[in-house]
């Protein structure tokens, strides 16, 4: 395991990307940072700019209006980069899967490395998903290489 992977596993900075979600998953993500769950003890913190981030926490269906923005934000991120789809909508489209304005789900638009289902997923589920993602990092550091379900 290289030094690069080791330090990445210990210090994951996440950027929160909401692409047409109903705000419920977003609230659950913020819940992870509250004193009860306290993700900072694992070195995970929320950053304001995607240039600083290692992981995109993506929520919501990707509708046609925000499709170009989602692609652009992914391209603006520095390597190594990972995407975690949080919630039923981000994973599969959820109840909006047959909607007229849906361009997603996320893995049709950008490479996704981990899926966290649930409507919304509990903070425990989000932490579990991130832990599985960290474990999968040992192999290769490419967003499209490993898929964790």
């Amino acid at each position, binding site marked *: 395991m290289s030094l690069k992977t080791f*330090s990445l596993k*210990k210090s994951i900075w996440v950027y929160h990307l909401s692409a047409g979600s109903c705000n419920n998953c977003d609230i659950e993500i913020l819940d992870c940072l509250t*004193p009860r769950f*306290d993700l900072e003890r694992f070195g995970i913190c929320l950053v*304001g700019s995607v*240039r*600083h981030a290692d992981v995109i926490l993506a929520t919501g269906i990707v509708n046609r209006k925000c499709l170009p923005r989602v692609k652009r934000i992914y391209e603006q991120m*520095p390597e190594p980069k990972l995407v975690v789809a949080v919630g039923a909508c981000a994973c599969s489209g959820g109840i909006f899967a047959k909607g007229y304005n849906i361009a997603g789900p996320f893995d049709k638009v950008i490479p996704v490395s981990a899926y966290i289902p649930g409507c919304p997923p509990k903070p425990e589920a989000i932490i579990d998903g991130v832990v599985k993602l960290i474990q999968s990092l040992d192999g290769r550091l490419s967003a499209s290489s490993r898929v964790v379900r």
Partner: protein
Amino acid sequence: MMKEISLALLSFLIFPGLLFTAVVGLLAGWVDRKLTARIQWRVGPPWYQNFIDFLKLMGKETILPAGAHRLTFLMAPIIGLVGITLVSLILWQMSLHPTRSFLGDLIVVLYLSILPSLAIIIGGSASANPLASLGASREMKLLLAYELPFIIAIFTPVVVIKDIRIGSIITYQMENGMMFTHHLSSLIALIVAFVCMQAKLGLTPFDIPEAEQEIMAGPLIEYSGPPLALFKLTKAMMLFALPVFLITVFAGGMRFDGVQVILSIVKYLVVLILIVLVKNTNPRLRIDQALKFFWLWMFPLAIVGFILALVGI
């Protein structure tokens, strides 16, 4: 000649320059994060967290935004880092050998300590991003607001002892006790300098340039990878060097004889904990409120301290 040069390089790069300040600064950054976590009833990160963050950022990709000025964009973090390293170097040399002090080194330290703020302004302006230039303009206004009361406050002890060397300030305090317990003027100046230091460090309530929730890290928005790591390192080193500066001028300096070693560490920790407490118990001000606060309250207070020092109290 060779020996002198290598000795100078050694003291710049290792002790008490870059490496020493960086390690202690990153540890101080951990104290900040851990204390913040405890105040919010959380567990907080482990002690090596800031080192890991630095390592990780060094391993990431550096993106040059389209439209950014390459050289200026990449030089800015180095300017800030060199500035704060020199501040720490001069302060520690004076603390270790007060006799080596030269005329006006206080002014040199004051001016070098502006370099990190200037680096943030330069970097933000060079990165061709509207939010970054907004942050840079806020940093500029904040610099104008706090720099004048800060300089007046730092010069109050100089007026008391009538000498502008850091070395003679330290020796004066060795003989007569701490500045701020013996002179009312220095106590007032210490309060002003402390508040100004909070703004210099860019911590709440004066983290207006980097307000994460409104302008997304401000001037640093376009930085990624190693340049961002250097900026974070500069911030951490400031958290070590500036309290040491205040202790040197007002509270007896960092000393290394007998029990004074422990006392020096305690003094630094007290200042650090005060900074963190102020940071965690205050909301962020708007830039106009900060300007008003410094010019209407801190500046007259600094002037009062200065006049008291002229009278000799």
